[in-house]
C-alpha cells in the first residue's frame, strides 16, 4: 500500500487493502484481546508485511495460505497479501490436516502463514518440492522443530513473522499493476459431497460486497463490530471488510462460549453483531445484561434460517437493536437481506437483493417464475465470483449466462442451486437447497419447514431434518434434535409435532442427540449428520412401516414413531 503512505489516496479502491484508506488515522481499526491498532498503525503494519512478502519473492497472483485463529496478525497477513498483489487463501482455523492438505495442494500455495503452534500440523501436509515455497510462523519460535525434516518440506523455507513484518515499506512493483478484476482471494467451501471447492473472488467482488453490505447495515466510523465468524467464511471476512470500508472498529474473537460474546459486547460497547443460526440459538439462551447491549443497534443472521422463536427471543433481549436476516452464497459473496421494517410482516422472508445485485427466480428453462412459484435463485451483478479454482466442470455448472440476457456478450450469473419463491410484493423465501429438498409420498417438503415446526414446540434446542431413501415413500423424513433441558424425550416432541404438521410432513423417525455436528463455519453439517447416522440409510422392506425397521442409534436415545 505504499501509494497511500504518500498521502495520495486512490480515486477509487482497486485492491482489498485499499479499504484501509477509509479510516481516520487515529481511529481504532482492529482489536484482539487487550491490543488495539489504529488505522495508521494497521496501514503501517500492512505495508511492512507486504514488503516482507515481496522480499520473499511473492509475485502478483501467487497464492498465500493463511492458517491461524483470529488475531491481529491474521488480519495483517490477509491485507498484506492483497497489498503485495498476491491472492489470500484463508483456511478455517478448525480445519484438520486432511482439509488443509487439500487446500495447499489445490491452490498451489507459494507461501503459508501460520502460527508456531500449528507448525507441526502444517509441515505434515506441505506439498513436496514446491519451488521457492515459504512458511512464515507467527508467535514464539518453535525451537528445535523449525529445521526442515517433514516429508513435504524439501524446497520449503521457514521464516519468522516478526522479522518479515518489520521490513521497511517499499513500493511493491507487481501490486501497482493489479486491477480490481484480478483474483484477490480463494475461499474454500464444503459441498454436500466431495472435497471443498475454492471460490475465486476478485478484488471487485470483495470491495463491491463490502460497500453494499456496509451501506444497508448503515456502518459508520462510530460502529464497533464483533467478528465472531471465521475469516475463511464469506460472512466472516465481510465482518472485517464492512468495518474497514466505513472506518469502523472491528473486535476479533475466537468463539468458545456465549458468555465470551456477551462480555466483549459489554466491554467494547459493540454496535453490530452477525452470527449463524446455531450460534444465535446458544446466544439466545442466557440473559444479557443491559450494559452489554446498550449500544447494540443491529443483530444479523446469515448461513441458514433463524427459527422464529429464537428471533423473537433475541428481539426481546435486544430491544434497541434492529434484526437483519440475510442470505448469501459464497459464489456471490452476499446476496439478499430483509429490511428490518419488514420483519414483523414477513419474518420468514430472506428479503430482497442487496444493493447493486439483482436476484432472479427462474424455471429450469430460464423463464421467470410467477409469484409463489418455486424456482432457482439466480444472482447477477458485481458480486458474482470468478468461478471455482481448478474446476472448469463445476464452474460451468454453477456460473452460467444470465437467462434472457440481451447484451452483445453473455453475462455470467451464479445459478445458486437454491430453491426459492417470491411473494406478490417481490420478497424472497428460501425453500431449500435443491439437493436437500425431501421428496416424500409424492410431496416436496422443505427441511426448513419441519425444523421450524420443531422449534415452535419449544421443546428442542437444535433441529435438522433430512430425507433418507425409502422403498415406499421415495424418501422418509428423519429429524435429529437436541432437547431443551434434561428428561425430555422424542415421544413428547412427536406428540407436539403431530398437532403442528400434516401427516406427510411428520418425521417418521426422531433421534435425540447430545449435540448436532457443525461445519467449520458453525453451520449445521447435514452431510456429516447423515454419515454419523448410518442406521437412517437402512433400506426399508416393502410392507413394513419405516420406523419399525430402523435401529436406534446406540449413542442416542432414539424415539421410534410409527
Amino acid at each position, binding site marked *: 500500500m505504499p501509494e497511500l503512505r504518500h498521502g495520495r489516496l486512490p480515486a477509487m479502491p482497486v485492491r482489498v487493502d485499499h479499504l484501509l484508506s477509509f479510516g481516520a488515522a487515529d481511529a481504532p481499526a482492529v482489536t484482539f484481546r487487550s491490543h488495539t491498532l489504529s488505522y495508521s498503525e494497521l496501514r503501517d503494519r500492512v505495508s511492512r508485511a507486504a514488503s516482507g512478502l515481496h522480499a520473499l519473492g511473492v509475485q502478483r497472483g501467487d497464492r498465500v495460505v493463511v492458517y491461524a*485463529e483470529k488475531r491481529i496478525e491474521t488480519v495483517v497477513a490477509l491485507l498484506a497479501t492483497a497489498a503485495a498483489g498476491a491472492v489470500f487463501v484463508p483456511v478455517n*482455523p*478448525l480445519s*484438520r490436516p486432511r482439509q488443509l492438505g487439500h487446500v495447499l495442494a489445490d491452490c498451489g500455495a507459494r507461501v503459508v502463514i501460520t*502460527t508456531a*503452534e*500449528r507448525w*507441526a*500440523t502444517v509441515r505434515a501436509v506441505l506439498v513436496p518440492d514446491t519451488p521457492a515455497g515459504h512458511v512464515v510462523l507467527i*508467535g514464539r519460535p518453535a525451537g528445535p*522443530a523449525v529445521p526442515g525434516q517433514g516429508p513435504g518440506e524439501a524446497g520449503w523455507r521457514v521464516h519468522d513473522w516478526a522479522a518479515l513484518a518489520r521490513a521497511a515499506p517499499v513500493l511493491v512493483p507487481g501490486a501497482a499493476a493489479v486491477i480490481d478484476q484480478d483474483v484477490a482471494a480463494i475461499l474454500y467451501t464444503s459441498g454436500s459431497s466431495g472435497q471443498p471447492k475454492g471460490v475465486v473472488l476478485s478484488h471487485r467482488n470483495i470491495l463491491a460486497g463490502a460497500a453494499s453490505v456496509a451501506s444497508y447495515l448503515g456502518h459508520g466510523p462510530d460502529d464497533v463490530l464483533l467478528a465472531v465468524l471465521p475469516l475463511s467464511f464469506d460472512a466472516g471476512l465481510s465482518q472485517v471488510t464492512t468495518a474497514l470500508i466505513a472506518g469502523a472498529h472491528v473486535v476479533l474473537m*475466537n*468463539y*468458545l*462460549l456465549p*458468555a*465470551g460474546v456477551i*462480555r466483549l459486547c459489554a466491554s467494547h460497547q459493540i454496535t453490530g453483531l452477525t452470527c449463524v443460526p446455531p450460534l444465535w440459538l446458544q446466544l439466545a439462551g442466557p440473559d444479557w445484561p443491559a450494559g452489554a447491549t446498550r449500544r447494540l443497534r443491529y443483530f444479523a443472521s446469515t448461513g441458514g434460517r433463524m427459527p422464529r422463536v429464537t428471533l423473537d427471543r433475541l428481539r426481546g433481549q435486544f430491544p434497541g437493536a434492529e434484526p437483519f436476516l440475510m442470505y448469501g452464497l459464497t459464489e456471490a459473496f452476499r446476496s439478499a437481506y430483509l429490511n428490518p421494517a419488514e420483519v414483523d410482516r414477513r419474518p420468514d422472508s430472506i428479503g430482497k437483493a442487496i444493493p447493486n445485485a439483482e436476484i432472479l427466480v427462474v424455471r429450469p428453462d430460464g423463464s421467470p417464475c410467477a409469484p409463489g412459484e418455486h424456482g432457482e435463485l439466480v444472482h447477477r451483478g458485481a458480486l458474482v465470483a470468478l468461478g471455482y479454482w481448478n474446476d472448469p466442470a463445476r464452474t460451468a455448472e454453477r456460473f452460467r449466462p444470465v437467462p434472457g440476457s440481451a447484451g452483445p456478450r453473455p453475462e455470467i450469473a451464479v445459478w445458486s442451486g437454491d430453491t426459492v419463491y417470491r411473494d406478490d410484493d417481490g420478497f424472497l423465501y428460501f425453500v431449500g437447497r435443491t439437493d436437500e429438498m425431501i421428496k416424500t409420498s409424492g410431496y416436496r417438503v422443505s427441511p426448513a419447514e419441519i425444523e421450524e415446526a420443531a422449534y415452535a414446540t419449544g421443546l428442542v434446542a437444535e433441529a435438522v431434518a433430512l430425507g433418507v431413501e425409502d422403498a415406499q415413500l421415495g424418501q422418509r423424513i428423519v429429524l435429529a434434535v437436541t432437547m431443551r433441558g434434561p428428561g425430555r424425550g422424542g415421544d413428547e416432541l412427536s406428540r407436539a409435532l403431530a398437532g403442528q404438521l400434516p401427516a406427510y410432513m411428520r418425521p417418521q423417525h426422531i433421534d435425540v442427540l447430545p*449435540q448436532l455436528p*457443525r461445519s467449520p463455519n458453525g453451520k449445521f453439517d447435514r452431510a456429516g449428520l447423515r454419515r454419523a447416522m448410518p442406521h437412517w440409510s437402512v433400506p426399508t422392506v416393502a410392507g413394513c412401516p419405516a420406523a419399525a425397521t430402523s435401529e436406534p442409534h446406540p449413542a442416542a436415545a432414539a424415539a421410534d414413531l410409527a
Partner: protein
Amino acid sequence: MNMPSSFRKILLAHLPYAASEEFSPDDDLAALGLDSIGMMHLLVDLEEAFGLELPDEVITEETLATAGSLWQMVSGLIAAELPVDA
C-alpha cells in the same frame, strides 16, 4: 505451577495443535486449537477424571485462556472437595 500428568494427558487429547503434554502454564488454549465443541468434551473429561462438577460460573473465557488458568480453576475445585481433615 505443577500440573499433574493426568491433567496434561486430558488436555493434550483435546488440543489438536499441541505436540506433547509438556505444557507450560501460559500456553494459549485457543492457539492450540481449542474450539467450542472441543471445550465441551474437555470439560466432560475433566469432570470424570477428577470426580468434579464444574459449575457454569467457573467456566469463563478467563479460566479457559491458558493451560495454567484452567488448572488453577480445576485444582481449586479439587481442593474445595477434599474433606477438611484430609
